[in-house]
């Protein structure tokens, strides 16, 4: 009997994970999102193989060409191929969004676990500070930070990471509060293990999964934020092929050369939409209440 119980316990995570994947696969819209995102990521990775052009080389003779076989999405005001720039821009837009969220998640996890583990004054101060940041419109805080740091793509990324931190702090803290009372933490305390070692070895690994899930949900939002900062002139600066920066120049030509702002916008919409569809699917599977 005992042996049987043990195998059951060991199998449980495996069964759970495959059930999760199965449910995700059953959700058609989620799969559509995954496929769209996969294609965009592959295209970004293999950009040099997919296009013969360089994203930054100026070719004034070919400026404002409409979409054709030579230039699928047309060319911009100095003759650069827009398709090429979108592919290389995907590296910037997606890459920076992911890095921003990873930074926010790691910092949030560290602050949240410490806050939850120690409680008391430390917890109060940290959580009230987080409330303060949360009590502020995300985009406007990111704008203020990016403007204060000076417009550049790294600073836009830092600004976005900063405004996203409180969400992860709250998540990690609430996980820590319940972990703190669990037997393995209590016994570790009895052995006199240093609190930071307990946090690092026992609390963090066990509170990381909700943080990862929240992270996947947030990447789509981060892509839009980066592009919006770029559009407002607070993110990537021309001639970087970042989507928001391309649109911020391109939209002035909208009525005469519709393809210039339209295609970067379309890709921005597709990647954010794909990520949101996937996030929706994950949420449905994990929280059955929302999908009923």
């Amino acid at each position, binding site marked *: 009997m005992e042996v049987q119980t043990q195998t059951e316990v060991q199998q449980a995570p495996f069964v759970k994970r495959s059930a999760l994947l199965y449910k995700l696969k059953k959700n058609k*819209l989620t799969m559509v999102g995954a496929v769209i995102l996969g294609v965009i990521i592959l295209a970004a990775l293999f950009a040099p193989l997919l296009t013969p052009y360089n994203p930054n080389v100026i070719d004034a003779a070919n400026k404002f060409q409409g979409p054709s076989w030579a230039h699928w999405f047309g060319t911009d005001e100095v003759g650069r191929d827009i398709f090429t720039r979108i592919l290389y821009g995907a590296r910037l837009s997606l890459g920076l969004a992911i890095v921003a969220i990873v930074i926010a998640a790691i910092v949030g996890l560290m602050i949240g676990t410490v806050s939850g583990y120690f409680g008391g004054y430390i917890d109060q101060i940290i959580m*009230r*500070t987080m*409330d*303060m*940041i949360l*009590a*502020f*419109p*995300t*985009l*406007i*805080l990111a*704008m*203020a*930070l990016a*403007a*204060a*740091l*000076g*417009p550049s793509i790294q600073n836009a990324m830092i600004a976005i990471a900063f405004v996203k931190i409180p969400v992860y702090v709250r998540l990690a803290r609430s996980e820590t509060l319940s972990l703190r009372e669990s037997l393995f933490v209590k016994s570790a305390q009895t052995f006199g293990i240093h609190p930071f070692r307990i946090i690092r070895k026992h609390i963090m690994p066990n509170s990381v999964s909700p943080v990862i899930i929240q992270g996947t949900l947030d990447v*789509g939002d981060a892509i*839009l934020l980066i*592009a*919006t900062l770029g*559009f*407002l*002139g*607070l993110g990537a600066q021309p001639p970087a092929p970042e989507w*928001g920066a391309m*649109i911020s120049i391109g*939209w002035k030509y*909208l*009525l005469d050369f*519709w393809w210039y*702002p*339209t295609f970067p*916008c379309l890709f*921005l*919409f597709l990647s*954010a*939409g794909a*990520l*949101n*569809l996937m996030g*929706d699917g994950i949420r449905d599977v994990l929280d059955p*209440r*929302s999908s*009923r």
Partner: protein
Amino acid sequence: MTKMIFKRLLLLVFVVFGVTLITFILSNIIPGDPASMMAGQRANQETLEQVREQLGLDQPILTQYANYMQGLLTGDLGTSIRTQKPVLDDLIIFFPATLELAILAFFIAIIIGIPLGILAAVKKNTFWDHASRIFTISGISTPVFWSGLLVIFIFYGVLGWFPANGRIEMQVNPPTHVTGLYLLDSLLSGDWVAFQSSLRHILLPAIVLSFAQLAIITRQVRASMLEVLEKEYFRTAIANGINGPYLLIKYGLRNALIPTITVIGVSFGALLGGAVVTETVFGWPGMGKYVVDSIAYLDFPAMMGFTVFISIGYVLINLIVDLSYYVLNPQIKE
């Protein structure tokens, strides 16, 4: 309830204090020099020093911050480097335009979002539900500038139905100033021409701005309606022969509204952020456009003033949202 209002107002003080502190510290490492921006490129060292002194930039950062906070308490947000006028005066001039746009967008989002959410919940897993899901996903995935550009391209570029810039036609006199909201003012003064012109101007940006919030509201109404539809009292109502809109509104919507209101309050932040972009795209002369123009000039007092203004507004809106719970559900006491 008084306790809650007091706590919120205390938070407001902290928000303003914290946000100004963070922005202030960060601005200390700003690469550009606002003084040289103001004095012009050909200014010599002496003039630069003078301007710096005039702006208080020669003092240590903490003194600068203390001075700023002191001014803030008396309603002095400093002088804009770009317009050379007090920031507060500038913001008061631009505020009504933003307010008018935000209010209209908010109403569009509610008027369409709530029925759409109910429809999606009642017709769960049918064509209507899927359509509303695709609609809401595109709502939160579409950057405001893209929906703005699309709308301008179609309704201004191709069809030519609506203007794409400003609040009112150049030839039309703005209505007599009462509230600063053109639609309201022109109605109050019976100025039909001005009303028509400002309505034509505000419609496109308001629709674009409402899109994201509309999506959030629809989604929330659907989720909370689904929950209510399975409650005992709802089934009892059906069993008692109650049906139609009365059933859905009195028994369904009213109970689904509390979580929705929370989301509406939170999403107001997205609306304010969206207003900055919408105003830029449509050349709408509001606070958002003011701040974007200021950024290009490294006009720090203007940016700070805007940030403080918005943070106060946002916390107050969320306070109103919390107070509305008491109206909706008398059971909630403390």
